[in-house]
């Protein structure tokens, strides 16, 4: 790597380390998170965040000065530069470990252009494969949004790399031949199990790949390739059809898939068993669960039986185990259990206590971890439970699970949720007092009089709508929580999918479905000529008036947060006051700036009524925000480690 590349990688790692929960202990020998006060916690947090921001800015500059000129003229880059770029890209994405996924993708795309231009066939095949992998991980990051942004491109590049199988004999390099087989196998990654056509193509791609992998002709031509590993990977990919089988149920459409999935499950189970034996351990619960699921889909036993088997596996869990297997048992089993149960009304009632037990168990498991033990995997598993959450009238509600357990794992985000909720509540209250007509579009509020009568209900609704509006951000925490440099357009696209994820999560449960439209539309402009998503329609949201308030409130809070991270305020990083990214003493200044920005977009991005309300109440809002911020920070600190009340 070139020096700037090494610096970039090092700084990137440092940023992650600073913002990683594990870094929270200021002195591991003397202080632990248990003895730390809220003030100390936020002080360290802020210092780390400021430092991370300095490094992120430096990273941006490094790329601007050194990398961008090369990428802009990649065709004329000398070969040595190309090799170093390749090496740099390798460091940015190591397997599934992502140091900078989007940058990796950009470099791979440039290298593909280079290889194509200079007709470097082997390099082209390799880079196409690598580019396809980057696209696969990018698509994976937006799974919860159900948006498909990168599939066709993934399919195109893997397909192109795989198409060189027609020139197999002419390609002498063994590694390149390996990339051809891997690309062919990975074509299946481009298709989704979420729809029938995608599933059909995925199965077809896996079949084609396995057929070639099993063909003795190719094995003879390149005996040194790890054929068994390739086949195992294909089997593993075929097991992911479980999700599809869950979605489709035991219908005729999936019968031909089921037997293949069972075959793959048995294959992988045997392999895992073998590995476990070698390690002197028992087979991981994940594989046991997969096996039971496959048998259920093959019609060997009923759904009730499957749930019983999953319960047995869950009972075997170790609630102190924070290894991969521990997470799988404590969080993965409740997620798939919920998913299977959702489709069966009778069983839902029967299994109420089991479900509640599993959810509380998941909460206890997460709470039992110290803050530094929390990682992205935990967050992902929690979000997956949220997506398939089952509510019972007197049971645990999704909104509580989301806010108090999932969001509270991300303290800054949690504070943002609370602040948006509080500001929305404040504005709604002022609007009811001074301009109740604004809210007469709400259901059951046809007149100003009715609005006043329903005041408490409206305020409660407004608070929760604000609180849950940014739920979708839980799907892109890797972007919003750990900024390693300025964003590229691609990151913006990924970020914007969070409104879909928010809607998807909230729409499913009774306690949250009223807020789904707000979470979907709070970034769309008031005049519908800007913002996102374009698919959002104001007319279809009966709570649009509240969404208008949330839209302005969340933007104002985000702007304050972002302004607070700017270089101007970093000098106060040593202040020992408890802060949430912004400095308390500067709330007034930050608020004024953010308010001016909101008011400048009155009538275009924001409702003029809401913008006017903000401006009219600027004076009382400053102390209100200061107090709310302090409370939210304390609350966020308290929530870390607190077990969700049963």
């Amino acid at each position: 790597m070139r020096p700037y590349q090494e610096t970039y990688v090092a700084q990137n790692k440092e940023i992650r380390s600073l913002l990683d929960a594990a870094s929270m202990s200021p002195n591991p020998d003397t202080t632990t998170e248990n003895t730390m006060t809220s003030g100390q916690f936020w002080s360290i947090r802020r210092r780390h965040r400021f430092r991370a921001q300095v490094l992120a800015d430096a990273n941006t500059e490094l790329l601007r000065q050194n990398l961008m000129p090369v990428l802009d003229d990649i065709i004329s880059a000398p070969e040595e530069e190309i090799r170093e770029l390749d090496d740099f890209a390798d460091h940015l994405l190591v397997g599934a470990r992502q140091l900078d996924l989007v940058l990796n993708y950009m470099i791979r795309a440039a290298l593909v252009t280079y290889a194509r231009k200079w007709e470097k066939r082997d390099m082209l095949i390799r880079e196409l494969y690598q580019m396809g992998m980057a696209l696969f991980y990018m698509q994976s990051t937006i799974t919860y949004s159900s948006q498909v942004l990168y599939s066709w491109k993934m399919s195109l590049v893997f397909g192109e790399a795989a198409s060189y199988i027609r020139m197999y004999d002419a390609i002498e390099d063994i590694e390149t031949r390996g990339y051809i087989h891997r690309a062919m196998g990975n074509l299946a990654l481009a298709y989704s199990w979420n729809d029938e056509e995608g599933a059909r193509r995925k199965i077809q791609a896996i079949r084609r790949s396995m057929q070639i992998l099993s063909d003795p002709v190719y094995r003879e031509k390149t005996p040194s390739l790890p054929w068994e590993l390739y086949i195992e990977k294909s089997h593993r990919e075929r097991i992911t059809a479980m999700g599809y089988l869950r979605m489709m149920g035991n219908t005729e459409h999936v019968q031909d898939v089921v037997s293949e999935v069972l075959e793959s499950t048995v294959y992988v189970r045997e392999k895992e068993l073998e590995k476990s034996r070698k390690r002197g351990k028992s087979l991981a619960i994940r594989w046991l669960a997969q096996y039971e699921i496959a048998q259920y889909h093959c019609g060997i036993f009923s759904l009730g039986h499957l749930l019983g088997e999953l319960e047995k596996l869950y009972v075997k869990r170790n609630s102190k185990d924070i290894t991969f297997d521990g997470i799988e048992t404590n969080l993965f089993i409740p997620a798939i259990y919920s998913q299977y149960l959702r489709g069966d009304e009778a069983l839902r009632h029967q299994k109420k206590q089991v479900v509640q037990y599993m959810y509380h168990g998941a909460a206890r498991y997460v709470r039992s971890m110290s803050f530094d033990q929390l990682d992205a995997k935990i967050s992902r598993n929690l979000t997956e439970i949220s997506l398939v959450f089952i509510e019972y009238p007197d049971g645990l509600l999704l909104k509580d699970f989301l806010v108090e357990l999932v969001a509270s794992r991300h303290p800054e985000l949690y504070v943002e949720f609370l602040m948006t909720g509080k500001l929305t509540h404040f504005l709604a209250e002022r609007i009811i007092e001074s301009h109740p007509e604004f809210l007469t579009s709400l259901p059951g509020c046809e007149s100003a009089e009715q609005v006043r009568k329903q005041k408490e209900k409206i305020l409660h609704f407004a608070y929760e709508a604000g609180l849950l509006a940014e739920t979708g951000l839980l799907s892109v925490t890797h972007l919003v929580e750990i900024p390693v440099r300025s964003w590229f357009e691609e990151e913006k696209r990924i970020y914007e999918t969070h409104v879909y994820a928010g809607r998807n999560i909230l729409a499913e449960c009774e306690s949250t479905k009223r807020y789904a439209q707000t979470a979907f539309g709070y970034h769309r402009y008031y005049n519908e000529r800007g913002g996102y998503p374009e698919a959002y329609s104001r007319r279809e949201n009966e709570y649009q008036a509240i969404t208008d308030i949330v839209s302005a409130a969340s933007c104002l809070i985000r702007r304050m947060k972002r302004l607070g991270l700017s270089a101007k305020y970093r000098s106060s990083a040593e202040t020992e006051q408890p802060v949430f990214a912004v400095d308390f003493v500067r709330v007034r200044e930050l608020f004024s700036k953010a308010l001016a920005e909101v008011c400048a977009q009155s009538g275009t991005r924001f409702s003029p009524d809401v913008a006017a309300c903000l401006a009219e109440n600027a004076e009382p809002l400053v102390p209100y925000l200061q107090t709310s911020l302090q409370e939210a920070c304390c609350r966020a600190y308290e929530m870390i480690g607190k077990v969700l009340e049963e």
Partner: protein
Amino acid sequence: MGEGREQWNLVWDEADAPVLLFVRGESAAPVYENKAAHALGVSVCGSDSSNGNGCCLLWASMSGEERQALAREAAEETHSTKPVLCLIGKAVYSAAFFSWRGEIVCTLQDVTGYYQENQRIINEAVLASQAKTNFLSEMSHDIRTPMNAIVGMTEIALKQQHLSGKVRECLKKIQIASGTMMELLNDVLDMSRIESGRVLLQMGPLEIADLLHEVLVVVRPLAKKKQIHFLVRTGVIDCERIVGDVIRLKQICNNLLSNAVKFTPEGGKVELYVEICRQRKAERKTADGSSAAGLTVLDTPLQMTLQVRDTGIGMSQEFLRKVFDPFEREQNSTVSGIQGTGLGMAITKNLTELMGGSISVDSRQGEGSCFTVRIPARATEEREDAHREAFCGKRVLVFDSSAQRGKAAEELLRELGMEADCVQSADDVVCAINDAMFAGRDYFAFLAAERDPGVELLSFLRSIRERMGSEFPMLLMSENDWSQIEYMYTSVGVDAFIPVPLFRSRLSSCLFAFTEAGRHSRQQEEQGMVRDFGGKRVLLVEDNELNREIAGEMLEEASIRVEMAVNGQEAVRMVERSAPYYYEMILMDIQMPVLNGLDAARAIRKLPREDVQQLPIIAMTANAFLEDVKNSLDAGMNAHLSKPLDMEQVFSCMEKYMRRPGK
């Protein structure tokens, strides 16, 4: 009745005004006339009044139905909408009818003075209208001359290299705007020519695809600007190449569509439906009623149907009666702000009828209108069969998010002898490409629709180009004007553009260009198209300095040696003084001072030299009407070019008429 009649006689016998009495439903002759009527010579004698005069003649000449209607009006004391005038001797009388005890009374009033005054006013109006028509015709040359300069200079400017994008865009817009201005001018002129019955159709082969595209390029932006949902539907198209007057057909389409857009509010809908079908046997009866059996496909009569439906403001039933009258506009507040001459529909109707067709309209106020034009047409030779061999076995991938549109494209491709797969999403495209590649059956070409692709199309097409390489034909099917989007799409690797709606002939010629045979034939064409006018000398006769400069520059660009004369007399003198065969051709303006082009041509042909009889003289005039062409030919000219000059036409004319080397 008897007692009544006596009373009647007492009242009316001495009246000054002539009075007659008819028995309802009975004889056409009056049963009573008073003294004044008698003195006037209106007789009650005889029921046959065919030789008579005056009112009884009037009553007798009416049909039974007319008499009944008149009697009804008289009985109900409603006023007849039509005045009833009759000529008695040299005087003009107005007849008034009313009912009396079940009988019809007619009183006559002498209106000779009023009638003569009216006639005088009408005659004056007719004269004024004729004067207006003459004035407009005369003005045509003067109005078109400056347009020539605008169009020509724009064309020259557009040919310059290194133009900035912005300048090129502005010039293209000037080109379009000046074209529109010419059309507006033509509207007024057309009406004057129609009024004087001087419009002649210029029939020729035309491609319906080209016709529609040219119409849609104009109309779509208008609709888009008003956020009107504009839809084009095609029905059965039995023949895509027909014989017709392309300019007049375009005019009909443009009039109907621009009107629909004009009178449809924002967010509304305008739909154009086109159909060209062979007339069924039952409809194919000759004038004498005999069957038209034995006709070939080309002879089979076609009917072209153009239907324009909108969700606009519609028309009142009263206005519908006069919608096709010249200068008629609906008088209500809704249309008061909408500009127009009120000539469009009148021109459309006249042109349609001139083509032997018909136009009808159905409209409801506040709901919209639907105009239907039906025009008989004749087929010309279909050409695409020539491409079948080149297409045989070729596979085309069609990407259109609309399954219906995709299916239509697929069907057309199959008709052309190709195989086609139609897919609806970007994922499907890539999957099809991969599958084809694995199966070893690569696609010959890729057709992508621009509309609602569900993917960022530019980025997608760029990726497809990268994947498939530079030789792979990638074509865009679009409703937009290619010149507006060309840069954007060619920059991502799109090779060509096919306008939507798709037509077999267009699709065929476009795809053929990418086959081996097509590439070969294009190469040959390009070689043949290199024009070599080097050394040829042309005499350009033009009084307008600017026009002279423009034409001179264009000709010199094609390596032609140009000599110029500023009027006909100078031209005659230059030819007279030149050596034999010195000029290869004369381009002659018509309206010039001193000696006009027609007389100059006659004078040149009369020169006592052999070479001037063969010297090609080509007329150039803004008066591009058929009678002008005829006048030019009568004056001894070889051909006629319409101004503003289209250089392609100039060059092909030169190729046709210039003497070959050695002659």
